[in-house]
């Protein structure tokens, strides 16, 4: 390339950029895509559904198109007592995560077990389905389509549920409200595990979107927060006004996620609550005003479910 010889320059530029993209996109994607799902990845996919950020089925991030995680203590068909089981209910029309619809997400062994033992190929989005996460004798995790293998129907499972966990819709709230701008979901591989628990491993993310690692940590990591603090009362107070339980917290209040009515159907008056709280903060009251219990269909309930479900 001589002085002002631009044709060769353009070729060199194109070649350099293509090389760069081959090494930084193509080669890593082969390695990353060849990793099998871990059990965590299966649970996450089934909990969070297809997509938690903006998508066609939930354009305003209201927590639509999401599965419901339920805890069962009895068989929904027979009513017999069983060991506590987590089932993932996809009501009719709910979109399945990529792992159920694409062959290359779960990893070879997991995919094989999920089809042969779990019959996931028989599940359909139109009819809805109930899934379980199981492990083979060889320690390979797989997804079981309980609607096909056990005849568990969506309505029966929801009726028999001991507890309903709206963690899927909660993750949508987590993204919409920008929780991940301060709370990461990535304990670091080098130092963090003493405080924040096990760093995620390579197969822990298959099928999850978005992963919302977060990068700018102004608050504790939340990947295992449900193991550190499993108190729903504490979480409820903390979301309503973090200063009630952590006087120095800089977290915003999320009291507006409670909506208009609390769990008992009483209207929520945030301004009145603030006035009473101000009295308390000034020292004119001994106790802060009572935090209303979030209604079962409120956004606060979903977000709290999501956080408590991060084990």
């Amino acid at each position, binding site marked *: *390339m*001589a*002085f*002002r*010889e631009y044709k060769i320059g353009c070729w*060199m530029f194109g070649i350099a950029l293509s090389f760069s993209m081959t*090494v930084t996109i193509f080669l890593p994607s082969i*390695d990353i895509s060849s*990793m099998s799902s871990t059990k965590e990845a299966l649970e996450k996919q089934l909990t969070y559904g297809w997509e938690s950020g903006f998508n066609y089925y939930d354009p305003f991030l209201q927590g639509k198109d999401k599965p419901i995680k339920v805890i069962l203590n009895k068989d929904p068909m027979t009513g017999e007592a069983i060991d506590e089981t987590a089932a993932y209910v996809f009501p009719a029309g709910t979109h399945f995560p990529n792992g159920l619809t694409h062959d290359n997400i779960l990893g070879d062994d997991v995919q094989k077990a999920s089809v042969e033992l779990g019959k996931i190929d028989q599940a359909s989005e139109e009819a809805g389905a109930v899934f379980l996460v199981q492990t083979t004798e060889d320690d390979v995790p797989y997804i079981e389509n309980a609607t096909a293998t056990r005849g568990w129907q969506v309505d029966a499972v929801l009726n028999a549920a001991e507890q309903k966990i709206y963690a899927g819709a909660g993750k949508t709230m987590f993204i919409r409200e920008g929780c991940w701008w301060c709370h990461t979901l990535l304990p670091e*591989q*080098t*130092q963090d*595990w*003493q405080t924040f*628990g*096990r*760093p995620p*491993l*390579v197969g822990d993310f298959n099928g999850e979107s978005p992963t919302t690692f977060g990068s700018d940590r102004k608050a504790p990591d939340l990947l295992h927060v449900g193991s550190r603090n499993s108190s729903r009362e504490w979480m409820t107070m903390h979301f309503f006004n973090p200063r009630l339980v952590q006087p120095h917290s800089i977290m915003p209040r999320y009291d507006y996620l409670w909506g208009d009515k609390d769990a008992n159907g009483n209207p929520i008056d945030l301004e009145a609550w603030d006035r009473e709280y101000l009295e308390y903060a000034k020292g004119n009251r001994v106790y802060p005003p009572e935090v209303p219990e979030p209604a079962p269909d409120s956004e606060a309930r979903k977000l709290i479910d999501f956080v408590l479900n991060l084990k």
Partner: protein
Amino acid sequence: MAWTLRRPLHTLTTEDENQRAKDLWEGESLGGIAENNNPLPRPVIGLLLLTYFTAMAITFPLYGQRPTAAIYADYVALLNSEPVQEVINDTSLPYNERNDKAMAMIEDALAHFDSKYTFQREQHPISMDQLKIIAPQIVELQTAGVDLEEYIVVGPEVIKSNFFNIQPDGTVIAKQPWWDKGYTVACWWFIVFCLSVIIAVKRLPPFTWRPDHSIAH
């Protein structure tokens, strides 16, 4: 274009081409801006070479390594030995004292043997409580006959940590971050870059030539 081996750093273009380049260089005003033909100052070349060697040296993963399960294998063996178990089960002493005494016995015993893990053990000291939690997991792995260096200790768990240095046939190339194909690619990347840029600038008129900016400006 021909490389004169006797003068490897000399311009790679013929005299005619150089003359054309010089005329172009001096005869044209790009929005009123002119360009000189200076080389990189020598100290800056030194700085660039230093940057490259620093890049290799500082990115090499000598730091921040995580403790493998292997460095605690001897701790576990000693923990399960009879004298240490006696101390741990000695209910006449308070819990903490028992722990401290047992740990002191283990460390004393380890100090008498050479081990390739001595350095890592100093880097990653362990408490008796944590040792008790990971001990059964390490014993289990030993029974299974796996290589403990492929496992790391993360809090209360012993986890397989080797994912990317295993060939499809199961051969293990490395157990910790070490020399990997990333460094190999990085070396070639730098070499090819240097060659390309040297060839590109060597096709310019030699840097001893100073353009005369009074012609076009």
